[in-house]
């Protein structure tokens, strides 16, 4: 796998090259689960012109770094909260490759019209009980054949009583996807697993 040229890893610190100013920006693994995954050895397969669907974009901290990585691509940021979306819309005015969409990730048909071409990668960062069901719905509609996903599983959102549910959840995921790698994000994020998989 070829590493993206805008992604720089130096002495345990992660930087991206800003598309507007060409300076290095530090990517904090304590704020972003994708950065935590990179620190743990899971480097996402993002090209200069890949198209990405980001479910649970929130205020756009991670989305801004991903927009650095894809100079010619597009990232669709979807979120349900109007307050977070205000900040994401402001961010999208500076960065021309972000498209903000205010919708519920559960209701795929509502934003089907906005995403015309299929995407290369889906990143999901929503803490919901039916996380995997939502991911499958989106992947069926929007993901290319052999496209990839990055899924951040929040274990405490799925079950408070039983924390050892990774296997059960991943079995559910394996019906549609081939799991390539999984890491726990322990020093950076508690009770989280980052999964990297490919559509069958």
């Amino acid at each position, binding site marked *: 796998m070829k590493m993206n040229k805008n992604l720089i890893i130096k002495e345990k610190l992660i930087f991206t090259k800003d598309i507007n100013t060409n300076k290095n920006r530090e990517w904090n693994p304590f704020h972003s689960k994708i950065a935590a995954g990179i620190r743990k050895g899971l480097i996402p397969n993002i090209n200069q012109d890949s198209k990405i669907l980001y479910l649970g974009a929130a205020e756009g901290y991670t989305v801004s770094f991903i927009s650095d990585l894809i100079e010619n691509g597009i990232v669709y940021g979807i979120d349900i909260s*109007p307050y977070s*979306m205000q900040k994401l819309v402001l961010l999208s005015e500076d960065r021309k490759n972000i498209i*903000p969409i*205010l919708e519920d990730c559960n209701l795929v048909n509502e934003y089907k019209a906005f995403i015309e071409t299929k995407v290369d990668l889906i990143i999901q960062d929503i803490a919901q009980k039916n996380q995997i069901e939502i991911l499958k719905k989106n992947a069926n509609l929007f993901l290319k054949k052999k496209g990839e996903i990055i899924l951040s599983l929040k274990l405490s959102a799925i079950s408070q009583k039983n924390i050892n549910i990774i296997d059960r959840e991943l079995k559910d995921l394996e019906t549609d996807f081939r799991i390539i790698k999984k890491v726990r994000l322990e020093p950076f994020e508690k009770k989280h697993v980052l999964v990297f998989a490919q559509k069958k």
Partner: protein
Amino acid sequence: MDRNEIIEITKQKIKEKLNNADQKIINLSQIIEKIPNNINELYEQLRVITDQEYPTLDQALTIKEYVSFYLLENKSEENIKEINISDKNINEINKIKNSKISIDLNKDINNITLNLAKDILNLIETKERIDLEIEKLLQENYVNAYHIATPQILCKMLEIAGSFKRLSRFPASTIQLLGSEKNFFKALKFNKNTPKYGIIYNHPLVVSLPFKNKAKFSRTLAAKISIAIKADITNNEIYPELNEKIKIKHKELK
């Protein structure tokens, strides 16, 4: 679809979501929740100094009366009457003045405390204005629920449900227990008795009943609130009939 078109649609949706009555009511009631605590804290700090000048006066007057009395430049009897303090309390003030147990504060300290008192009065007025605004919004949009559930309880229910539309889908039994979710699920987990009431416990009609009948009445009340909320969605005015039924039940149980 073009990128700019999608962004325009998103901007419109943000406006629609933020500009509805439910969101305004929830925001205002969240502000109002913390204001009384702030007022009480500041009032206690003010009294550390003013108690030297007017000891035990706080027991006779309300916070608003106390602060507005303290802010008067000329504390003559006519001026005191203007800020709606009763004759009984004016006698109390005179008694404290004549008792010679207090000291006169110097000007520098007085200037500082006057500012603090102004802040407290401002907070009290803000709270009153927000209360009025919430009542206005509720009366315009949800008449039935406003009259049956009282504004404070309705606001808290809205906060938990997120929107009035979602609240209207709750059954009466859920409305009865709104606010006691933690206790309810704890009881289910350990096979204990489930709670009988949630926020509804603070309703003036429930408070006035003997302890034995509170649960029975809160069940009736929750049923009527649920009907009222559903009537609001369909724009019917049925609160006088519901109120009568509630009053009959209340008389039985008193």
